[in-house]
């Protein structure tokens, strides 16, 4: 064993495979991290869109005609949950913890967690769970 460890024959080949392993590891990390960030950003933008749309869709027009902004809080809450369920692809699992709305000014804040798989999760890597918080306030009188 000692003789084998001291033998310098083929040391360049071993160094070559060592470098190759490091480079492949870096490539793997770049692909995995890039895809994870992309998935996370996509989910956050869909959640933010759902929040904005829920507020925009539930401004009560009878008040807006008098230049007063009032939100139908219950409708906004229901719409937000419905938009999130319809818009996010099935690979995402979203748990909405709280949805709080204020009628005037029309505002909504939602918190929760989302879980999604990574590219290499099929090889035993765990799914990623991150918390989210989205907020929307509407001041549009037109």
């Amino acid at each position, binding site marked *: 064993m000692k003789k084998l460890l001291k033998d310098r024959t083929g040391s360049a080949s071993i160094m070559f495979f060592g470098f190759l392993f490091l480079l492949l590891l870096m490539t793997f990390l770049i*692909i995995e991290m890039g895809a994870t960030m992309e998935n996370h950003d996509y989910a956050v933008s869909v959640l933010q869109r759902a929040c904005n749309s829920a507020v925009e869709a539930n401004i009560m027009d009878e008040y807006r005609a008098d230049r007063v902004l009032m939100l139908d809080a219950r409708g906004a809450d229901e719409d937000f949950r419905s938009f999130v369920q319809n818009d996010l692809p099935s690979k995402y699992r979203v748990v909405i913890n709280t949805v709080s709305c204020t009628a005037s000014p029309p505002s909504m804040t939602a918190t929760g967690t989302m879980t999604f798989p990574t590219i290499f999760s099929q090889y035993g890597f765990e799914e990623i769970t991150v918390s989210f918080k989205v907020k929307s306030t509407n001041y549009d009188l037109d």
Partner: protein
Amino acid sequence: MTAKMKLHGYLRSKKGDSAVEFIMTAAMLVLTFAMLISAMIYVTQYYSASYICRRVVRTIETTGEYDEATVLALADDLGSDALDDLSIQIDATYCSGRRIQLRDEFRVMLTAEYRITIMQFGQRPIYVDLPIQIRLSGRSEVYWK
């Protein structure tokens, strides 16, 4: 006959075998390294194109309308000049002009090419054009009365 024997002896000589092994391994290592670096650059360019596409989608979502000049200016600001032949196509149903009604879906397709130069002999490089195609969809957040 003597020359043949000399060549035979030269080929069987073990002197300098480590140097030859090192040169061959180093050449392979450099080649593999260059290929992996090119692959990593392509992957990062793909993510960059994907980011540009997502920003375009968010801009249309928040404004509720498609303005070609704004979209091209945004892509330009985000460094689209690193990509060749970049084009952005929008597929949407407009309620009036270029306006998209609240919750109506639209699709954005970004196509581009990323050129990897393999070798350059004088003025004529040998290159490979790798395609990049991103398809995303969004929904308008603006209610048009």
